[in-house]
């Protein structure tokens, strides 16, 4: 029997979408649904974990095991899920506030453990759900509701941070180019290890429609001249000031993942000493 062909429609849900008309996150949702279809992941084998924020609502909009968790904690919940069920595909998603502010600690350590999950950050440079406060990626000097005199802080560079931390797959997409983003997600999902995709996903309500144009004008699609296995080249790209790199910035293979390491430990432990039941462990207390 021919396997049933899955389409993006198979990953839609009945949950009403709360995003503003024109929100960049629609593009990301489409890209994720298309990527799932292309990868032919049965919906019951897909887990989508998000944090809190406008973009984190996305977990409810994808037909999968969806979990819209608490602020900043998508990554450890996704990591725990992957550790428990390595045979499942686990995606984590959220915004810049969720991932680079309240959840930074987890971003750092999930990279360190190389948990085999794909992390899609919808970076809109603003706190949208709380209606317009400064975020860790808001440009210096920008006016927001919480920076009436202009943003005094310098923005965080998530791509450079991920590279320094040893991330094994780093990409940047644009919600205005769904096809390109879909391919980044497909590649990231196929990557064995932590796949980090920062997506320029404009907030039309609090940063204005021109944000799309900013990416269109300054976005540069990486071509064959960029070697994503070359750390130095990747580093240079993450340091671009005006231009916005789009595509796979860095990609290396062979780094053990969280669930592989756990499996290796289990095998090693069980080779050393095999117990028939937990009762046999009583001996250590004698």
């Amino acid at each position, binding site marked *: 029997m021919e396997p049933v062909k899955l389409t993006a429609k198979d990953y839609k849900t009945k949950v009403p979408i709360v995003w503003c008309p024109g929100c960049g996150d629609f593009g990301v949702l489409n890209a994720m649904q298309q990527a799932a279809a292309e990868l032919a992941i049965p919906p019951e084998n897909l887990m989508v974990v998000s944090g809190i924020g406008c973009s984190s609502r996305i977990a409810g909009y994808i037909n*999968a095991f969806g979990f819209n968790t*608490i602020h900043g904690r998508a990554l450890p919940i996704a990591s725990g899920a992957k550790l428990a069920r390595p045979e499942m595909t686990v995606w984590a998603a959220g915004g810049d506030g969720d991932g680079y502010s309240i959840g930074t600690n987890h971003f750092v350590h999930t990279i360190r453990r190389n948990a085999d999950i794909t992390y899609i950050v919808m970076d809109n440079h603003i706190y949208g759900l709380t209606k317009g406060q400064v975020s860790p990626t808001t440009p210096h000097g920008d006016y927001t509701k919480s920076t009436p005199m202009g943003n005094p802080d310098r923005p965080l560079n998530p791509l450079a941070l991920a590279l320094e931390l040893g991330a094994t797959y780093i990409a940047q997409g644009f919600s205005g180019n769904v096809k390109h983003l879909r391919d980044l997600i497909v590649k990231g999902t196929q990557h064995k290890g932590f796949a980090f995709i920062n997506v320029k996903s404009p907030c039309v309500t609090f940063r204005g429609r021109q944000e799309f144009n900013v990416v269109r004008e300054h976005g540069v699609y990486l071509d064959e001249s960029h070697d994503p296995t070359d750390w130095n080249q990747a580093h240079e790209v993450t340091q671009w000031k005006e231009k916005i790199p789009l595509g796979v910035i860095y990609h290396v293979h062979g780094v053990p993942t969280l669930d592989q390491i756990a499996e290796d430990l*289990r095998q090693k432990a069980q080779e050393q000493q095999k117990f028939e039941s937990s009762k046999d462990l009583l001996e250590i207390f004698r």
Partner: protein
Amino acid sequence: MRDVTLAIAGSGGDGVITAGDFIVQAAARKGLNAFMLKSYGPQIRGGESSARIRISDKPIYSQGDYVDFLVVFSWKDFARFTDEIQLRQGAVVLYDEADSTPPEEFPIDKDLGVELIAVPFKKMASEEIKVPLTKNMVALGVIAELLHLPLDGIKDAVMKKFGKRKPEAAQVNIEAIDLGKSWVNENLPDGTQIVLEAEGTGEPKLVMTGDDAVAYGALHAGVKVFSGYPITPASPILEFLSKWLPHFGGAVVQTEDEIAAITYAIGASWAGKQAMTASSGPGIALKLEALGLAGIAEIPLVVVNVQRVGPSTGIPSKSEQADLFQAVGGTPGDVPRVVLAPSDVEDNFQVAVEAFYIAEKYQIPVIILSDQFLGERSETIDPEVLFARKRVISRQLAKPSDLKDYKRYKLTDTGVSPMTVPGMKGGQYITSGLEHYEDGRPTSSGTLHQIMSEKRARKLPLIAEESGFVRVYGDEDAELAVLAWGSSKGAVREAIEKAREEGIKVKAIVPQLIYPIPEKKLDAALKGVKRAVVVELSFGAQFYRYLRAYYDGLPKETYSYARSGANPLLVSEVLEAIKEHAGAMNAPQEA
């Protein structure tokens, strides 16, 4: 004597705890009951430490109020423990003659009439064994000889620890023990002895700490993912499972912080595997938001809190019972949760199994409120009792008929809805920390919030009915009762026995399930009780206030005996509290 309490005090490098461990193991091998409480200063290495060991052929429930036999390596170190190590009248005290403190400055009450004996522990170890570190083993030989402890049992314990890996070390230690023994025979008159007359059953017992017991219980209950972050006094749980869980097909992660520790466990449980995290008060505080997530999303979860002295950093290495309000009321919103309190080491094992049973069956977070006093002490346990109670632990998974138009949060009479796990076709759903419809879709409807709050709360009376275990000791028809929880049980149980020996009719009531309150069982236990004393180690009398607020069945005359923790609850202070209220009870009634 059939019930001896001894203490060894020294600095961290003196091997005080190791010596104590050997004594306990020796007692266990003979089938005796033993109990060891370790106490440390805040230093990582060096600093003061003490081991307090009680041995008896009768069941032991507490650390023993007074010490019969004390070994002091350094008076300066001992001086830090005068709060917790109180000597009995006429106790025997051995001290290292190498300590230059003049006898008039020994931090010991002169009125106690203790017998002081200087012993060349350090000299024997350095000059005869030529290994200064064996000082503790020389002392062990001296102790064993004076107490008539089974020397072969101690040697077995030494062989078990060093035999395989370091046979030379085992040999040196055994020589040191023998040296201590002969020193007693050559130097001390026969009268200087506190002979332990207790005969063991001959059936070897196990030696376990409370932290190991809760970890082992979890392992036995089938935990597959444990995630934790180091914190005193809960770290031994992380260490135990790191060592043993992979042997049983599980995984352990030491996470970046306390929040990651609980959220890893939530993710794993949502994915379908039994999961647990453990911490102490300050770490639990950080986990509370996530606990609420497990509550509203109805994800099975077990969280262990090995309470320590608070608030904030408090006294990390000592015990208190002041995280009760945090467990019962912490986290924003009306979060359904269950709080279980183990009362001794064996109970730590049982409660861990029960916690998984409740968590999985009712899809609810369960908090185990242990404490440092339970977690870090060692006790002897009968091997059979551990597995006497059988619990089949399973999650109510959705059946094929549930999967048609699947509703994760379907309204049911029990409040428990069929749960799917990834891989079950048609079982996909959205879950979140948001209030939701039956199918998991978010809502901001107040009506639905009420309905869902009711649904989640419907589980609680069922849990109280099924798992609401209340221990009752003493006179069934007593009109005076002591109410206690958790680790206070030990001293309370001994105190009521003492009171009864003195002719006071009294009983002790100790619930294992703290929240929800097992009302019917508590009502039954309190039947006929006219006066109650609530005993606890919480300055704010949290248990007393909790019962007052949440439970209608307390006798009108209910009093509180509460003090801050750090120093273990004494049998004598509980006895005094009992007498105070019993006295009033026996006073002539006014017309």
